[in-house]
């Protein structure tokens, strides 16, 4: 497990985004995408980022992951700046790629190939554990082409979990799934990620689906139109599991919509 994170007090920030700005190089002139974005993600917090289409949500996530360099400001994880990808930070993509010629187990084990501290047997053990955590025990020897969309997504989550990340980033993880399958994965994902047996200490998910956000998030960061700044934050104070039919639930949905318009 990640020792660095076990020292951190509950609620203390794991991820800090300080005055981040980003301009993409356009054809003629620079395209300002993020303008002074600040936010934090705390211990055991599930944070959702939302905002109008094209406002820079994926860009912000990539900056947090260390995949894109900010033009201004900085990002810190566990107190040190993120300037390039780090092993404590992992990302699950919308249509993430599984290697079709490898079984589920091999796909997950593959993520551990650079871990010289683990023997092959330990890697397998770890990979099996992650698959089990994601509800896939028994599916170790199945190829991606033989899995449904929801199960492929679970293998992707297992692959991310196996690397013992502290920060789990997800960009629209449910958007390519049919409604029923997404519903099912949403029901499981919170406890799959935030539970004492995983190393994950904070989750940041980008989504445009406000009901999905209220079902899952402790905190919602709403971005404005491009160039994006933080239009507002909502702390969702609802017990789990959340009743999607309750009036209270829709109260929170409305709060987020109010910030979106």
């Amino acid at each position: 497990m990640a020792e660095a994170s076990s020292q951190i007090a509950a609620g203390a920030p794991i991820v800090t985004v300080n005055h981040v700005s980003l301009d993409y190089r356009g054809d003629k002139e620079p395209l300002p995408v993020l303008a002074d974005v600040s936010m934090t993600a705390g211990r055991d917090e599930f944070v959702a980022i939302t905002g109008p289409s094209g406002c820079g949500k994926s860009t912000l996530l990539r900056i947090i992951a260390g995949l894109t360099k900010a033009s201004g400001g900085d990002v810190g994880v566990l107190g040190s700046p993120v300037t390039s990808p780090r092993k404590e930070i992992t990302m699950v993509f919308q249509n993430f790629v599984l290697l079709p010629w490898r079984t589920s187990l091999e796909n997950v084990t593959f993520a551990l190939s650079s871990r010289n501290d683990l023997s092959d047997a330990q890697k397998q053990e770890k990979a099996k554990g992650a698959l089990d955590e994601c509800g896939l025990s028994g599916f170790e020897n199945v190829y991606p082409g033989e899995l449904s969309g929801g199960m492929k997504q679970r293998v992707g989550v297992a692959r991310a979990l196996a690397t013992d990340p502290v920060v789990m980033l997800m960009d629209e993880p449910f958007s390519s799934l049919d409604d029923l399958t997404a519903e099912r994965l949403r029901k499981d994902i919170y406890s799959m990620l935030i539970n004492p047996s995983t190393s994950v200490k904070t989750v940041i998910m980008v989504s445009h689906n406000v009901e999905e956000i209220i079902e899952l998030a402790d905190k919602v960061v709403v971005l404005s139109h491009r160039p994006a700044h933080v239009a507002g934050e909502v702390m969702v104070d609802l017990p789990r599991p959340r009743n999607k039919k309750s009036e209270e639930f829709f109260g929170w949905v409305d709060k987020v919509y109010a910030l979106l318009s």
Partner: protein
Amino acid sequence: MAEPGHPLPIALVMPGNVRAGQVISLVEITGGLGAKIDAQRLADELGADLAVLLPILDAAEMLGLVKSEKGEVSLTDLGIKFQKTSKNKLMLLKDKLATIEPFRTAMVLASKGKPVTAAQVADALGEYGIRWHYKQELNESLVKMLLVHWTIYAGLMSYDGKSGKFQKA
């Protein structure tokens, strides 16, 4: 190839496009919505087309999880138990599944101790006119999908992707 050698009663056949996860969601949502709910409202709640929902409903009914009468859907006792079980729900359906095709035939063929391929199961069922698609290749791959998606979860069979073979778990 085909050697079922056992009389087939009127067969229960799993729809080829229904996945275990969808049935689980359906049961959860039906349970969450109260005693009885009409199928159209259920489809609306799911944001799904009635055309998408119907085969899933069929599957859930075949598995004894829901009853639908005059367009109204409700959970059976098994459905309620299923909804309350948190881990390995599909294990509850082990016996039920073994009565539904193509799982039934796969289990019969595998009971002779030898692992079976989806093609062998598809061939055996084809003898009785049970097919999910008229093209042999697609039919085989649908049978394989069904076996992978249901029997592993339920703990009925295990699967080895390298050899493409299923055996009794």
